[in-house]
């Protein structure tokens, strides 16, 4: 047990320099952006004098040496102060944090759907190696890898919302409808189907290919031959013996994909008007709200770091060999 605790502690501490580096990158980008906070406020208050701008700079500490500004910036980050959105007139942190749940809901749903379908497809493809279904999985993967996600979303809207009329084309809930709690959950679920499918399909292909490759590798091991020699059915060998051993490498890759998933989420949310971080990015771009954009970069990087940490810890607990390395 102390080994496990030590592993968790060590792995968690390794995150600190990465977070600092993310903060440093944000600070550098902030200074590359044209105009600082003082300029923006001055511009908003209308034709202000040079003295007023200088006063503002002093108030914000923008007249100090760069390294001092960096320390101030870090100190503010530690109190979750990501600056102020002068466009939306609210603290950046508040704007972002209220959008995180929607994005997490979308990402989690997409990844769970993708994982389940992808792993199942991968298992079946490996068990039917070099037959019709195996080729189908490979062709599907090729096409999915080449499809722009946001375009896929638009095409799904055309098919399911416009032509068939069975699913809503955007938003997260039916606006202005009086509903009981279970009906509301169902309503959100209906709105979730298309964006989650759009976002998830790419990873269905990813997991299917990974699982297939991992299965095929396991199939070459001696214990599979032993299981077959015992006279177990091919279904049992495939599902119980091969699949359970092939799953672990696929789990690690789930963590690696989170940054990519978040990028896809931005585009998919924009297509479906899903009220998460992605939509916030789109709005921030329209209004040229750089403070908000940088805040989103910071928080989303943080989300990726934490998610990777959790997957690492989970993997360590699933596979004791890693803890003792």
């Amino acid at each position, binding site marked *: 047990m102390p080994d496990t605790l030590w592993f968790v502690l060590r792995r968690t501490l390794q995150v600190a*320099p*990465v977070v600092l*580096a*993310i903060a440093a*990158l944000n600070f550098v*980008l902030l200074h*590359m*952006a*044209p105009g600082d906070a003082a300029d923006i406020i001055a511009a908003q208050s209308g034709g202000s004098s040079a003295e007023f701008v200088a006063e503002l700079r002093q108030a914000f500490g923008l007249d100090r040496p760069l390294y001092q500004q960096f320390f101030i910036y870090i100190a503010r980050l530690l109190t979750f102060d990501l600056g102020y959105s002068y466009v939306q007139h609210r603290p950046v942190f508040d704007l972002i944090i209220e959008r995180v749940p929607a994005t997490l809901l979308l990402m989690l749903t997409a990844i769970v759907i993708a994982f389940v379908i992808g792993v199942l497809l991968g298992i079946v493809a490996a068990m039917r190696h070099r037959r019709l279904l195996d080729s189908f999985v490979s062709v599907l993967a*090729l*096409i999915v*890898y*080449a*499809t*722009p*996600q*946001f*375009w896929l979303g*638009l*095409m799904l*809207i*055309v098919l399911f919302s*416009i032509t068939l009329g069975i699913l809503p084309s955007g938003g997260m809930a039916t606006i202005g409808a009086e509903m009981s709690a279970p009906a509301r959950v169902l309503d959100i679920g209906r709105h979730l189907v298309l964006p989650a499918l759009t976002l998830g399909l790419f990873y269905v292909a990813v997991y299917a*290919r990974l699982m297939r*490759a991992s299965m095929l590798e396991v199939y070459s091991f001696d214990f599979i031959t032993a299981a077959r020699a015992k006279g177990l059915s091919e279904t049992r060998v495939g599902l119980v013996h091969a699949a359970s051993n092939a799953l672990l490498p696929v789990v690690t890759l789930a963590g690696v994909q989170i*940054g*990519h998933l*978040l*990028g*896809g989420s*931005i*585009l998919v949310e*924009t*297509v479906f008007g899903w009220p998460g971080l992605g939509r916030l*990015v*789109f709005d921030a*771009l*329209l209004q*040229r709200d*750089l403070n908000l*954009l*940088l805040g*989103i*970069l910071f928080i*989303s*990087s943080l989300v*990726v*770091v934490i998610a*990777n940490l959790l997957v690492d810890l989970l993997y360590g607990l699933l596979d004791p060999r890693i803890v003792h390395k």
Partner: protein
Amino acid sequence: MSAPLDFWRRFRRNRAAAVSFLVLLLITLTALFGPLVYPIDPFEMMGRPSQPPGRRFWLGTDVSGRDILAGLIHGARVSLLIGVAASLAATVFGLLVGALAGYYGRAIDNILMRCTDFFLTIPSFVLAVVLIAIFRPSVFNVTAAIAIVSWPPIARLARAEFIAHRDREYVKACRALGMSDIEIIVRQILPNALPPVIVVSSLLVATAILTESGLSFLGLADPNVISWGYMIGVGRSVLRSAWWMPAIPGFAILITVLCINLVGEGLNDALNPRLQRR
């Protein structure tokens, strides 16, 4: 048999790759010479807006009455240019980082790889969006932003290759002969490390084209040139009445990226014949 011919013979064995190569050649020729053969300004209003594909406008017109076929032809230029240039820049930079880290090892390796891991951690699409928003969208800036978020995988791969080669006998022999490090890196190890890097870098062209289309869709495109992603964004507003408008440029992206991926696989078969196909 001459080397290029030999290469083509091995490449051709993967039939999907050979066909994709020809399609890609066609798309490239269209991008290069299409505007000469079909000299229509993709930004000019040519007819009634939102016409479906027909005899006068083969692929129809968009919401502003612009010829979609002209947009598609000009868009091919931007997509291919940005895709190839971004991949090339990312490859050169990634090779540089990977070569130094792999060849010298120790502290240099440590520092460079921490940087690489860091860039792998940040959500690359968000970083690209922020970079372009700060520096304004232009063909150059979009290319640079995509390159900045794409180099880490190349660096990792190149590093692994250089580590595999740095202690081989031929490298030791070169050192004993008094060759400088730069000469060993560039003239001895690099040619051996290049084949797997070329494969990944060809696949990077596909990713870059997809990223570019996503950025253009969000409005982060050079306003002076037309691109496929921008055309999808324009067509999105009339999804209900004219689904073909966003469908056509999206399909162009799909075909192009698909062909690049298949060519990449073919390159892999031809350049690394000893590697087992996944």
